[in-house]
């Protein structure tokens, strides 16, 4: 007796549109609105420090969504995702510095430029798989970092570039952190909507097909090359948007912010969040930011312990701390928080039966 436990008893679908709805019953639609409403109320409950954490979590979730599409859904390993976020930041910075464009004009470009570059680096993915692709993206990361830090005339080299906040829109002045948080949150909600729809439509299925069995997918009429390049393109588009929004918050961006360890943390915390689900990407970004805050608490502790100058202690501890968290998750909870959340939801929905 395989009943559909995702639907409460008494809901039946009269057409395929109803069948496809995620939030099918009025109760679930209300829960969704409640969730979104609470997200918008959060800034009024916390101080500025809280707002900065929330803004960065939202920006990073968009980046994580991009990586989820490339690695979680399409199975192509990318160890250079932070670099593409960097390109997004620098595109906005350069356009504002040299051409004086407004932030609103730069935002779409901040998505398109990394998208094109991502597609360029997606091409090797056509002929190589798995580990070799990881090398290609690693190389891509270094090439991008090298170009940005050495093209002094345009990118102002290693001493970074200014990015100013977006101009007022419909009377909302975005220089205030709270308003800027609303902008980033709205962008995140839109991006989550786009990513969810992507996974439920034709391209989403093609991505999963390529991940699960790309030999069979090829013979089953899916153009593998086209799908992989698109995966890289869309993933890097998300990374670009995340970079632009994140960078504009700090209003200054530097090459150090997207080094090799950032790319590795992207991949690592995606594992913590969980592959193959939208919730996994958001959970990963949230855990990453929370770990950030925790590691800053660690430094005073480190001082008492080491007694030496603490400036290097926080850097060392954050490296060790993150790496341990990711490895522990990978060994003991390989399918991440999203899977654990799925199990809890399933157990509740099956209550009181075991299966």
């Amino acid at each position, binding site marked *: *007796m*395989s009943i559909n*436990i995702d639907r409460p*008893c*008494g809901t039946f679908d009269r057409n395929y549109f109803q*069948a496809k709805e995620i939030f099918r019953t009025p109760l679930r639609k209300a829960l969704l609105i409640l969730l979104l409403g609470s997200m918008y109320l959060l800034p009024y409950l916390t101080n500025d420090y809280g707002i900065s954490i929330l803004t960065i979590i939202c920006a990073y979730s968009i980046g994580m969504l991009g990586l989820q599409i490339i690695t979680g859904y399409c199975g192509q390993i990318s160890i250079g995702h932070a670099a593409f976020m960097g390109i997004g930041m620098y595109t906005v910075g350069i356009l504002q510095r040299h051409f004086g464009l407004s932030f609103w004009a730069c935002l779409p470009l901040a998505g398109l430029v990394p998208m094109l570059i991502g597609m360029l680096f997606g091409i090797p993915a056509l002929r190589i798989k798995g580990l070799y692709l990881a090398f290609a993206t690693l190389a891509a990361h270094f090439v991008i970092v090298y170009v940005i830090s050495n093209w002094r005339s345009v990118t102002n080299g290693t001493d970074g570039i200014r990015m100013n906040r977006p101009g007022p829109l419909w009377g909302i002045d975005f220089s205030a952190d709270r308003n800027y948080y609303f902008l980033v949150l709205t962008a995140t909600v839109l991006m989550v909507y786009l990513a969810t729809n992507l996974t439920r439509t034709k391209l989403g299925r093609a991505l999963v097909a390529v991940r699960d069995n790309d030999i069979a997918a090829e013979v089953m009429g899916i153009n593998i090359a086209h799908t992989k390049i698109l995966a890289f393109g869309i993933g890097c588009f998300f990374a670009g948007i995340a970079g632009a929004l994140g960078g504009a918050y700090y209003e200054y961006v530097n090459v150090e912010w997207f080094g090799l360890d950032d790319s590795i943390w992207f991949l690592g915390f995606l594992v913590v969040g969980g592959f193959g689900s939208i919730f996994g990407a958001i959970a990963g970004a949230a855990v990453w930011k929370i770990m950030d805050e925790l590691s800053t608490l660690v430094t005073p502790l480190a001082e008492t312990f080491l007694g030496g100058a603490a400036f290097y202690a926080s850097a060392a501890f954050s490296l060790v701390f993150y790496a341990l968290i990711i490895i522990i998750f990978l060994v003991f909870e390989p399918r991440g928080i999203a899977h654990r959340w799925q199990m809890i939801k399933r*157990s509740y929905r099956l209550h*009181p039966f*075991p*299966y």
Partner: protein
Amino acid sequence: MESITEKTWAQFLSSPDEDTFPKLLRRNYLKWAANRVAYRYKDYGIWHELTWKDLYERIKFFALGLTSLGFAPKDKIAICGENAPEWFMGQIAAQSLGGSSVGLYTDSIPSELQFIIQHSDARILMADDQEQVDKLQSIREQIPQVEKVIFWVARGMWGYEDPWLIGFDDVLEMGKAYEEAHPNAFENFVSQTRAEDIAVLLYTSGTTGLPKGSMVTYRNLLGLFHGWDATLPWSEKDENLSFLPPAWIGEQIFTVAPNLIKGVVINFVEKAETIRSDLREIAPRVILLGARQWEMICSEIQAKMIDSPFWKKFLYQSFLPVGYKIAQAQEERKKASLFWRVLKVVGYWTVFRHLQDKIGLTKTRTPISAGAALSPDTFRFFRGIGVPVVQGYGSTEVSGLDVLQVEPEYFRSEGSGHPFPGVEVRLTEDGEILLGGVGVVQGYYKQPDETAKSFKDGYFHTGDGGYMDEEGELYVIDRVKDMQTLKCGEKFSPTYIEGRLKFSPFIKDAMVIGNQRDYVTAMLDMDFENTGRWAERNHIPYTSHPDLSQIPEVRKLLAGVIQRINTVLPEATRVKKFIVLHKDFDPDEAELTRTRKLRREFVEKRYAVLIEAMYQGQEEVDIETTITYRDGRKSLMRLPIYIETIAG
């Protein structure tokens, strides 16, 4: 004195143009046309809807198609198929031409079909898919009077160029052509139907002798339904799931009548295998299940709860007694103390609301159990988990359910409730129940002697023993013939003991023997799945059904079950010995009737060797049995059956 039937009939039925099914169809069509749903069927994963307008047109064209096929008034159409809109459309179309429909069971063997078709001299047949059509073709020579067989699921029939077969849609086309030739022929066919015409001819296989066809008229159906509606009102917004075999009277009175009279929507399941998930999707407000199905649901819940994690099991096991306490109080018509009632609400919100959601009964107001008597333990179990099961009693000869426990708050676990308005219950001296009133059918088709035997001056002799308590509630004990007496004169009811035995999740079926013997013995049919799971949990290796049934530990387990039941039974009628059968009772080997009731004489004859062995005090009996392997090969196997005696 004006008999009860005329009084109720006049009281409920207002205008003459609403006293037959076709007229009611026309009324609904005129009243709602396209803005209310009549039928809803699940196909290709979604529920398609047929409004009253669609239904009316389809039935009109099908009826006219039948007339162009030579269907005359008073003719019969025999329909054999799974629950589908076509089934009821064919029935109402035949009825609107003044004819009537004969219900056939899909899982009956060709010889049964042949007898019913010949006896009811149906001239046109309807079958749903290739399987039924092949069955009918195999008996084609024996039923010469059948002109056409209409089928509606054409899967795999592309190769059949036989003129004898015709598709449902082709009949619709013929109907459209006929309508051009004779405009509004259908309307005056409908207006010619009378309340006294035979609506439906239903053959009850019964546990004895050949099937008998009861002639059920519109008056019976409508009168009885209005009686029911007066006590338990149906509303327009109700949903009704059609999954019981359409050839059973329950389906007519419980699905077709409310749909036509009250506009309750009928939902048709996708396939027999998906009944449970469709039931959960529709969540019908009123549901009628046989006692067997309630017992299956109950043992399934118990089996799952055994495997569930500890915190779920703790919640379930701590709140179930609360339910039992409340049920106890209700039985004694007392108000339970506030403490228990609060606990019940807590239990509802933590466990039982979810439990009902999983089995699909959240919106069910009146879950009814009919057919065989439901064992008191199952009854109390469902009361415990908050499903207010009520028992009913009736038979085809009185057009379905006549007696029902009405107030869900108050019930007796062994009782069958009070008769509907318009139905009269009387008892003969030796306790046989007589049913009269609006439900009594006109008699058996073409069997005047049987009719005379069963129907005397307006009352139907049910052949079931029972008694009435002071509040007028009817208690059905057992079939009079089945009441058995031991050698020492002690009377006992085998079905009562069998009911208690079947409550245990490890026993699927049981047969108690003891007529004219010195003690009671039992033949148990083990539930392979649950017992197998119990064996695995206790690390007892087993291979097949015959092997598991004879393992000593399993016999110890079942002996324990019997011992518990024996404590409730009077001393003399306790089960002294039992054996575990090596295979299930199977309708295809005619050990059970179509509705899963036990055929006692046949089974007693078949296993006479085993029964005698039990009474001669043997410890072990060897029997041969054929085993069919997965790839179709069969092999004969000698198997020892052990006889277990119960201590004390």
